[in-house]
């Protein structure tokens, strides 16, 4: 007798959602062959709680192995699979098909504003460059004398909790119209990560980061369109964080 009691045939916990057919229209681009990206249709039989990532895997594993996309954790914490789904930036692993209108085709394409490499893969380096440029690490000259932790009250800790959730998926930055037209703009994700340190009571580098973001490509480029907040798969109040950094710069302190 093996452990067949644990063998699962698929998600059954809530199997009210039946099998259905969905058309995925994926913007493909093979840099070794194509001059321009092209849209390709796939009709797929999908099930109850399947996500867009499952549909992409079905294409890759059963139809065309050359379809290229990034993915890793498959439950919304690693930030690999941000892409445009029906025109909105989302994580493919966190977007359930049943929550989209499956009577209509689902359009999937790479993030906008970052250089397209292949199919759903973009060059992430410009994005990480901006992140690194805000000096995203704790700057603190002193260490507690007793060899223990620095003290921080729960209230001080709560002050920057929201911006610690960032997974650097680029959904926010690549949803920003300012970033689309001006690739030099730091973009929301870099500002979110600056916020995470500017408002950390242990940090002494707020002025450094505020100076960096007071640049013409800094926070003042933000037009408060809230695209970033809508796009964030972690529910971070991105636009608010940017506004708080703007206010801190105007005050000259966090």
């Amino acid at each position: 007798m093996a452990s067949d009691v644990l063998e699962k045939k698929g998600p059954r916990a809530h199997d009210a959602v039946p099998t259905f057919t969905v058309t995925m229209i994926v913007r493909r681009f093979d840099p070794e062959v194509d001059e321009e990206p092209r849209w390709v249709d796939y009709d797929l039989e999908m099930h109850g709680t399947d996500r867009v990532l499952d549909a992409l895997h079905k294409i890759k594993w059963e139809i065309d192995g050359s379809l290229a996309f990034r993915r890793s954790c498959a439950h919304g914490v690693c930030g690999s699979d941000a892409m445009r789904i029906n025109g909105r930036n989302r994580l493919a692993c966190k977007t359930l098909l049943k929550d989209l209108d499956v009577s209509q085709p689902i359009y999937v394409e790479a993030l906008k504003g970052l250089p397209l490499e292949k199919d759903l893969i973009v060059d992430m380096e410009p994005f990480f460059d901006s992140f690194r440029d805000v000096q995203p690490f704790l700057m603190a000259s002193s260490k507690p004398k007793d060899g223990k932790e620095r003290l921080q009250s729960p209230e001080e800790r709560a002050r920057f909790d929201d911006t610690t959730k960032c997974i650097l998926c680029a959904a926010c930055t690549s949803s920003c119209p300012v970033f689309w037209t001006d690739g030099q703009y730091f973009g929301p994700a870099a500002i979110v990560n600056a916020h995470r340190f500017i408002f950390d009571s242990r940090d002494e580098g707020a002025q450094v980061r505020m100076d960096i973001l007071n640049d013409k490509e800094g926070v003042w480029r933000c037009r408060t369109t809230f695209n970033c907040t809508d796009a964030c798969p972690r529910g971070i109040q991105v636009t608010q964080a940017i506004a708080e950094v703007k206010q801190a710069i105007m005050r000259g302190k966090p």
Partner: protein
Amino acid sequence: MSETDQGTIVDGVHFHKHDIVIVGAGGAGMRAAIEAGPKASTAVISKLYPTRSHTGAAQGGMAAALANVEEDNWEWHTYDTVKGGDYLVDQDAAEILAKEAIDAVIDLENMGLPFNRTPEGRIDQRRFGGHTREHGKAPVRRACYAADRTGHMILQTLYQNCVKHGINFFNEFYVLDLLMTEVDGVERPAGVVAYELATGDLHVFQGKSIIFATGGFGKIYKTTSNAHTLTGDGVGIVWRKGLPLEDMEFFQFHPTGLAGLGILLSEAARGEGAILRNSEGERFMERYAPTIKDLAPRDIVARSMATEIREGRGAGPYKDYVYLDITHLEPAVIDAKLPDITEFARTYLGVEPYTEPVPVLPTAHYAMGGIPTTNNAEVLRTNTETVPGLFAAGECACVSVHGSNRLGTNSLLDINVFGKRAGNNAVEYAKSADWVDLPDDPTAGVRRLLDHVRGGDGSERIAVIRKELQEAMDRNAQVFRTDESLRDVGDLIKKLRARYRNVQVQDKGKRFNTDLLEAVELGFLLDLAEVVVYSARNRKESRGAHMREDYPKRDDKNLMVHTMAYLTGDAESAQADDHIRLDWKPVVVTNYPPTERKY
């Protein structure tokens, strides 16, 4: 730095030279890099962007006897680790883990990690499975945490500090071979060979010290909390080099995966008071672990859940899962301490944890076994001798601090303690070591590997072979095992290995060819699954996560020893017996002779 260093190009192959070469950019790899980077020329090579590593998926906490909220000490932590591992833990290593835990947590806080805080401003701590005060009397609050995204915070903090130190990363580079050269009769590492995803180019990294920190291989199972990328490449490379693997039969099944999906719901839920219930609403863990109940170690809880289901007390229309109930907790507490996992239940199962119990099932989670190392993270080439200059840390390594069953929160601890040790020891070694010459034509092995996966008749799909492997592993080598079930899956693996020779790679291009790499990864999964099953069949006792129904008792007289698996003869031969040799290595016992394990 943004531009990846292209190295020196000779005949299309890129050559790089660094004192320290770290393979893997999860918690262990980056913790090592933070030690090594400021002291020696260091390169970190990762198949992912560092912030994508699966350390970031860890939720509940990191154990350390800080005693911030109640009395605790590292000796109790050592004892719990040894007992939790069902006495297969090397006790000197567990002592190091528990002692150095305190500095490891303080290091992270000093680096900027935003731990949850007590009203006094200290790092807050919470309960976790198997962590007790006074040698098992009651649960103790030992897990330092940041909501239920402690791993995320560790990964981010370590990456932030790597940015601070200007660590040289090679992202989306897949290391596929370890280069060894014989020096004075002993094989020593000369470097590694990596495949660059973006271009398909091969890169040779020569290093004095090589650290493997490549994580686990949970994708040998279907129902798993592990990322798609956890295919055991590093462990597989070491195995193929003829170096041993230790305790591979011990694989942890985490009790609370979302039913049918395997997505993890942290043990922190039970640490905060969640209760497991069967179809009758009974808190069944009271029967299996009367003292610490739902906070028993994971092997015991997973087995208890499986037993409930087998005996007909599973919940749901098919009676095939149990419930994790947090409905009695205040929504404010849930939001503050367990926000992410409740979001997972809502997103993926459509269940509202405030008011409904969440369907859960054990999910493949963590490899206790792996590349055997000393307490200084040096890799063993025999039961007693090391490979000079080769190190391993994190889930890919087996020190062994986890024995046959890891305690929750001890893995985030392991990566920090032994990642740091690996980094420091790699630097020490590199200071006095000479460069080892690269072999002639260093990329020959990787070219052969790639030709191999592209060279068959293309009649077999990658996904089909992988699925057959994963489903059979779930069926036959999961929480319960028998000689028959292991023989069944062993026979299947033999057939799958043969079919793998004709695997189909549809993508013929060089740029971002993830199809080719999935084929390569499948090869590692097949090799490692074979070792897991072979080692499991050979261990005729039940210990920790390894439950043999045909040998239900622990056998300390004969089997309180580590399994050491060696690749011998023709690795391609069909029968596992022809190319795997098993040996035993003694367990280090210091203060804790084995006793019956009760909770």
